[in-house]
């Protein structure tokens, strides 16, 4: 069967090319990450050496300990974790509730409210810093964890994403459930949320990324190291000179590690969730 054989060969070729392109792209993306890790393990002299070292000839791990102690990273990592987990939890709850209301409830002003929600996506974060600062200041919350968290307890993107996902839900199921005496909250948490887990998980990850990497807001609302976050600590390390480049790289690796681990663990869910949100609705 020459035609089948031909087709098979063509498939193999196509696959080979596709993988070759992907491997090259992956190398381009991963190389800086790799070099960051390598540089953390080199001595400062080796880092400035030209041509550069592509692997550590004699890795020295002490830079990590130095980064941890000198950069005060223990406290900063804890603060970042508290802030990030709280933001993610709040954003998930508020987004799910709001999206549910937009899809399954009929109430006056529903459309207008939804457009207002969408409009918040158009405002760049930098523009809201001063009004947010004034609000937090008026509440007397400067230099506290609530100051880090409060402005981010709801997310326009989350509401939008979940609404699109929930809209693909057959309304017959909702009707059947309510006939059986299933209330809104029960329906939401027993049926809607479990079915949409991929989208919710993916959004949770993105919320985590965004919160963890925040810099400007934490900088302006904190005034003591006891509530400052790891990105600020990293910036403090990056002020170091030549003689401590290895410490800076080690700090970067430490600060990026939680995100890298999460991405590896939830990569499948991330991709599935995104496409789910994109095509439904």
């Amino acid at each position: 069967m020459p035609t089948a054989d031909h087709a098979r060969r063509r498939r193999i070729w196509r696959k080979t090319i596709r993988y070759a392109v992907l491997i090259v792209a992956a190398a381009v993306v991963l190389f800086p990450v790799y070099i960051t890790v390598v540089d953390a393990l080199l001595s400062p002299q080796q880092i400035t050496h030209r041509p550069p070292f592509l692997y550590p000839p004699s890795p020295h791990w002490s830079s990590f300990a130095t980064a941890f102690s000198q950069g005060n990273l223990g406290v900063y990592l804890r603060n970042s974790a508290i802030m990030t987990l709280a933001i993610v939890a709040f954003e998930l709850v508020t987004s799910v509730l709001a999206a549910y209301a937009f899809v399954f409830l009929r109430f006056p002003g529903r459309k207008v409210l939804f457009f207002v929600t969408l409009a918040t996506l158009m405002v760049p974060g930098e523009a809201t810093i001063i009004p947010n600062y004034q609000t937090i200041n008026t509440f007397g919350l400067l230099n506290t964890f609530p100051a880090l968290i409060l402005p981010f307890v709801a997310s326009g993107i989350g509401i939008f994403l979940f609404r699109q996902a929930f809209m693909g839900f057959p309304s017959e199921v909702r009707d059947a459930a309510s006939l059986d005496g299933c209330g809104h909250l029960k329906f939401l948490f027993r049926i809607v949320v479990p079915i949409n887990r991929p989208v919710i998980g993916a959004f949770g990850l993105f919320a985590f990324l965004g919160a963890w990497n925040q810099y400007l807001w934490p900088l302006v609302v904190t005034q003591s190291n006891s509530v400052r976050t790891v990105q600020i600590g990293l910036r403090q390390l990056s002020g170091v000179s030549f003689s401590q480049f290895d410490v800076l790289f080690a700090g970067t690796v430490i600060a990026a590690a939680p995100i890298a681990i999460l991405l590896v663990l939830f990569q499948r869910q991330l991709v599935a969730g995104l496409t789910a949100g994109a095509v439904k609705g």
Partner: protein
Amino acid sequence: MGILEWVFIGGLRAYHSAMGHDDGDGIGPVAPGGPSHGPSFSRRNLLKGVAIAGVGLGVGAGVPGTAGAAKSKFPIGASAKKSTPTQITLWHSMTENNLTTLQKITNAFNSSQPHVKVNLLNQNSYTDTQTAYTTALSGGQSKLPDLVQWESELIQLLIDSQSVVPVSQAIAADHYSLSDFVPSMLNFFRVRGTLWALPFNISSQVLYYDENALTKAGLDPSNPPATLTALKKACQKIVSTATAKYGMSLKLDQTNFEQWMALGGQTLVNKNNGRSGRATKVTFDNALGKYLVQWWATMLKGNLAQATAASGTGGYDNLLAIGSGIAPITIDTSAALGTILTVLQSGQYPNVKLGVGRLPVPGSKPNKHGGVYVGGAGMYIVKKSTPATMDAAWQFLKYLVAPTQQATWALGTGYVPVRKSAIRIPALAQAWASVPQYKVAYDQILASPVNAATAGYVTGAASQVDTDLQDALTAISNGTPPNRALAQAAASANSAIQSYNERV
């Protein structure tokens, strides 16, 4: 810089409205420093508000010598009258050795007297300090620090924020003498007759070169090029003798251009560099400016110089090029000297013998009205609501700039001392005797005459003007005709200055 500047202006507006409302009706939380009085600090009521706070705006309050005219109300001695120590905060941008030294000096101050306790808050960089300060302004005076270390060239932004007390008020009230300060350093922080800050960490652009390479090219390393004409000749010799691939590295940094204008005795903006009135347009597109960009283009075109990045990961390329022997000369800030010496001591570049020279002057001979102006940062006293915190800030500031502390500071960081007598303090004198390279930047600043050109330029749009000049230098390195690049920079800078002036 556009966004930050925008935010800053936004901050000013928000600040004025906040002072008129939030603080006025007492909703705002009370800071440790005490409640703010003064019902309204809106622009319209500024003078009234200032009078209530007992601060005095200080326009026209001169420095000693000219002082006496305006009777200042700066609350000298207020912190010592209190039974409990006054807590104050300094926002700074110092890291590593600089931070360690600052912390050491601060600890010594805290334990030296019972009245004032200083807390340091690291804001990471001058830019971040600016952002944090701007945002805090919108929350009212009580959210600001008591002292702020602020990048020298952004002085006008801080003046326009109306949130700092000129140090000349404290100086007049305290009968504090400025005679021991390096005159050209004070010159920088004086705008329209008012001294706004005291210089703290000061640096200057200097010439770095490898003495061995110069010897090899048949040049005298003990007599480095002192003019741009001589520098060009030296580079030609380095290239023609095949000593190195390039004569030198030119960082794409507008600071060099700006310093050369000052060395040539010319201003960068009108109104005497913004010192006698608010600058309305640039003057750097004059004959000297055209000469400088032409020189720049000639150096790059003939491979006499390689262009390297001004900042970021490539920011050290000009220094590394000395180490690797690609280009044995460069110009950079004197603040980098400590780092360079550390790297050289590590033994990585055994063939390099570092020489440091003054920044070469434009043309073929020095201009007697010309001189460098300072880089680095000054310390500003923030207008706070209580006399005790303002006085405490002044007491600490005096300590920071005293000769002993300035000697410690210079030793620990590589910045140059702001006091003339500091260099006679044994520890510093000995260190400079053994590493004479450190003294070059100091001598150069000390030699600078006091006039408008060497004061440096002042405009609220300084960061935009810098960006425009830097874009011009980059464009020239990419082949744009120098005069056209300079004209573009002037046009763009003019509109930036105009739009800033309209918004203030």
